[in-house]
């Protein structure tokens, strides 16, 4: 018998909701069976905490006196995009500081704002009759600005690649430092806890779904950029590599630095760790089949990041149980593995979300529109107008 979101929300309201995290559901379903689990459990919380480069924040500063139509804007010397009206900007997480280079950037500006720290705002303009001011330098904080919200075009990747390095020199990538001659391998997914791996065909997660976003209650605003649901999948539904993605939105002023952290990949640049938690309603038995997925059932592919091409050579597939064991075999050689996303923080988020639901502070949503199951994945080719 299928459950509706409304029925689950009624249980949340009455304090009778049964919530497990995506790790606990594995043993529960094993012991009790699919049928009983579907009947007894109402919600499963999934989560992830990893670097998500495609993130940023919209900010409205309010108007100065005399006012300015900002055309170039810097926040702590990090350029922000100002081509939207007079005092709106978008600061991207990976934008680098003009004075500190690779060690400070947009992600740090966002973290500083969330932490309540002062941020230096500098802007210039050509000046107009209605906006006469040509330059401004002042300080802002979370509390002095108007609306500020994270709007991340691509987060919560449904699985990701494993990176290794076959060359004879150390390379510095967004997958971290990769030692020469297959000296190590890095991966980046919460595996069995990860939101889109627990809902592989987007039955529950869709546009409008309420989520935990860096400590706030945010929403899935769209499917993410590079959304590629057509990736090869296992019979259990999980894709063997990068597939679906989510665009998410949430109020920056309600976020916590506990669940959002700026970072720098040495020799690569700035990125941002974002904590995302998504509750999945246990609407039917089929949902339990997807939710009981465990690390050994999820596979991903190993790629050689020393090959500087769009298509990198593959060294085969491994599952997350093997990856989390600390070593995998590549070309017959044992290679040490390390995760870039934090399983501990993901687990913490799944438990925070569980508590919020149990305490009646977080209600589930029906999505407004589904996330597409078909989408063309284009590449950028260098063409003349005639060749298009």
């Amino acid at each position, binding site marked *: 018998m299928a459950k509706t979101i409304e029925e689950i929300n009624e249980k949340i309201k009455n304090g009778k909701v049964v919530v497990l995290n995506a790790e606990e559901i594995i043993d529960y379903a094993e012991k009790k069976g699919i049928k009983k689990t579907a009947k007894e459990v109402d919600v499963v919380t999934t989560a992830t*905490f*990893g*670097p998500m480069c495609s993130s940023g924040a919209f900010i409205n500063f309010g108007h100065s006196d005399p006012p300015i139509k900002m055309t170039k804007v810097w926040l702590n010397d990090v350029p922000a995009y100002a081509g939207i009206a007079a005092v709106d900007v978008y600061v991207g997480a990976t934008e680098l500081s003009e004075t500190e280079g690779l060690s400070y950037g947009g992600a740090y500006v966002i973290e500083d704002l969330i932490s309540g720290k002062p941020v230096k705002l500098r802007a210039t303009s050509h000046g107009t009759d209605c906006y006469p001011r040509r330059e401004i330098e002042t300080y802002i904080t979370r509390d002095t600005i108007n609306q500020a919200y994270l709007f991340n075009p691509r987060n919560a990747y449904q699985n990701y690649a494993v990176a290794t390095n076959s060359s004879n020199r150390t390379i510095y990538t967004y997958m*971290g*430092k990769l*030692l020469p001659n297959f*000296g*190590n*391998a*890095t991966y980046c997914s919460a595996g069995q806890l990860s939101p889109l791996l627990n809902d592989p065909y987007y039955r529950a997660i869709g546009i409008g779904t309420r989520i935990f976003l860096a400590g706030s209650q945010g929403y899935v605003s769209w499917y993410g950029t590079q959304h590629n649901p057509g990736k090869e999948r296992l019979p259990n539904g999980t894709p063997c590599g990068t597939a679906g993605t989510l665009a998410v939105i949430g109020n920056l002023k309600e976020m916590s630095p506990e669940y959002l*952290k700026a*970072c*720098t*990949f*040495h*020799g690569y640049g700035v*990125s941002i*760790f974002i904590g995302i938690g998504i509750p999945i309603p246990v609407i039917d038995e089929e949902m339990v089949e997807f939710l009981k997925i465990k690390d050994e059932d999820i596979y991903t592919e190993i790629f050689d990041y020393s090959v500087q091409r769009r298509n990198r050579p593959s060294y085969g597939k491994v599952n997350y149980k093997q990856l*989390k064991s*600390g070593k995998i075999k590549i070309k017959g050689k044992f290679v*040490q*593995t*390390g*995760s*870039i*996303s*934090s*399983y*501990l*923080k993901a*687990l913490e988020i799944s438990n925070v979300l569980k508590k919020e639901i149990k305490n009646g502070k977080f209600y589930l949503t029906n999505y407004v529109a589904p996330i597409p199951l078909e989408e063309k994945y284009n590449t950028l080719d260098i063409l003349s107008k005639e060749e298009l």
Partner: protein
Amino acid sequence: MVKRKLVLSFPENIVTKPITYKLVKEFNLEFNILRAEITPDMEGKMLIELRGDKVLIDRAIKYLTGTGVSVQEAAKDIIINKNQCIDCGVCTSICITQALIIDSKSFKLKFNKDKCILCELCLDCCPVSAIKVHM
């Protein structure tokens, strides 16, 4: 018999002297060179484990300091800032002696100083700069 792991830094002017040989001959110490390198400005650096009589090790350190070698306890040098660390574990892939591991039960990063050979490979791999070395 005691065991001590030390980092020896040799200034340019004594880099060619057979100093470790003296440790055996004069102080009857066993040693195990875990790592040695000469940096471009010709300062020599050595991670060494000394094994022998406690008093003799102390005397040997005095001798080394006297010749101009700077001596540091090795295991004290790598410091993990737990407030900064997010327990991702990317450093565990770099750590060849597995001094850094993610505990399979708590999922927390654990640092075992006894296993650390101070290779410093982990220093620039931490995305939140939680790993520092004290020189």
